């Protein structure tokens, strides 16, 4: 089956991202396809490469990044939600005159159309929220 996943909460504060990660891993292990993972609301915070969790805890961002590289996952961060919350890639930073960027290289910034398209293309869209 072809799944799309939407993650609506940030890392650590909510379990949403952890649950989604476990779901995606299980789906891939079973041979399913993950069409896209879309990060919205505070979920965009899962994309900052500047996160530093304590050493004895999981690194949620690096975990997503590693899984994406292993399985060529399409990790998409909503541009409007990201800009509100100070999540920028190099392009967005220079376009908006900001002096830094923080998006991990495994994520890409795009628009909400990517979410709707995922809903159309996938057999199931699974939402992980609060």
């Amino acid at each position, binding site marked *: 089956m072809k799944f799309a996943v939407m993650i609506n909460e940030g890392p650590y504060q909510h379990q949403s991202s952890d649950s989604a990660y476990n779901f995606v891993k299980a789906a891939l292990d079973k041979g399913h396809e993950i069409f896209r993972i879309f990060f919205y609301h505070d979920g965009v915070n899962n994309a900052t490469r500047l996160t530093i969790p304590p050493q004895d805890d999981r690194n949620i961002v690096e975990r997503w990044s590693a899984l994406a590289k292993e399985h060529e996952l399409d990790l998409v961060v909503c541009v409007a939600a990201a800009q509100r919350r100070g999540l920028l890639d190099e392009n967005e930073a220079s376009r908006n005159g900001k002096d830094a960027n923080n998006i991990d290289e495994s994520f890409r910034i795009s628009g909400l159309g990517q*979410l709707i398209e995922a809903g159309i293309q996938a057999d199931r869209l699974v939402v992980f929220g609060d």
Partner: protein
Amino acid sequence: MEGDVKKFMYLNRKAPYGTVYALESLEVVLIGAAFDQDVSLAFVDDGVYQLANNQTTTPNDGIGMKNFSPTYKALGDYDVTKLYVDQESLEARGLSVDDLMPLTYEDEDDDWAEKPSIRVVSREELTNIMDEQDVVLSF
């Protein structure tokens, strides 16, 4: 993608202010309208407050946040014409349809007659409508 029309439901469960869910949900609805899918919105729990009439948020009279409720009035122009409101949620909050914005759309199949977009439905009706959906986005 052409010819591939799915039933999309946006499920709104949160009050319009206090968290950003309602505002960002509405942003998805507006973008999604460009994709020519079969779209409906459902309002349950505190989500029914999103449609409350006479919202005032100016710094003098309210909480100093952007009042985005006028945007719901534009949904009809985006062919978003099915807004289901859970009756139980309304009643539990002492509200009736008269406390909600009088949202309408022009029905192109009926000589552009103006019709109400809001339909108050029972839990059972809403359950059946949800069951028919291909995609449910929960906010």
